[in-house]
């Protein structure tokens, strides 16, 4: 496996770190404090995880006063993902919903 993949996989291998990254994907920009409050680990631990994610290019930080804000950089995942298969997965799940709906329309 090429080196950039190794770095991405390694940085996302840790469940706590992955949870932080997923939260940034879902909720947009977050401060370290907000991420700590939801993570169940200490702020220094969260900061360390964010450092690893930043090194992998998965997050970007922005300083504002005493706060540091982090955002997910989805583009960093591009080497890992074939978006056409992502989109196919999206439609498969929508078709599941469609079939459920058609069943209900019978009643």
């Amino acid at each position, binding site marked *: 496996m090429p080196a950039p993949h190794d770095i991405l996989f390694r940085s996302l291998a840790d469940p706590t770190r992955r949870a932080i990254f*997923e939260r940034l994907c879902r909720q947009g920009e977050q401060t370290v404090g907000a991420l700590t409050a939801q993570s169940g680990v200490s702020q220094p631990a969260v900061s360390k995880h964010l450092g690893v994610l930043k090194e992998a290019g998965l997050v970007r930080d922005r300083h504002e006063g005493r706060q540091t804000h982090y955002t997910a950089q989805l583009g960093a995942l591009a*080497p890992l993902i074939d978006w056409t298969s992502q989109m196919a997965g999206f439609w498969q799940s929508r078709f599941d919903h469609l079939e459920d*709906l058609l069943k209900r*329309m019978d009643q």
Partner: protein
Amino acid sequence: MNETSAKTRSVIVEREIPYPPEKIWRALIQPHLIEEWLMKNDFKPVVGHSFNLRGDWGGVLDCDVLAVEPNKTLSYTWNFRHDDPAYNLASVVTFTLTPTRTGTHLRMEQSGFRPGQKQAYGGAHAGWQKFFANLEQVLARVD
């Protein structure tokens, strides 16, 4: 990113559905039904009608109705505007319904993905969980 050509790519999803085309057609064109299986919308089955699909992740897709052939074909644009060309998505979604002995063959083709496409908005939300599940499997094999 498996392809490096300049051509755009398509996603095709097909399914046999045990209901007649007329019934599936209703689910494809009635806004309150579309909302139940796809997204919130202000769709009208009128060629040229512009509408939005609003995903529960906050994304809004710009769509224009291209073709309406009752119980047979429905086509509309599926566009996500973004300043970064790598994230900008201009695609066309076409549903084709073909009656079969047991119901309907439903085909969805989404075309227009460019090889450099970084994001497929609309797919991202549903795709994340699958992606992370896949990732865990890959990780299990890496060690």
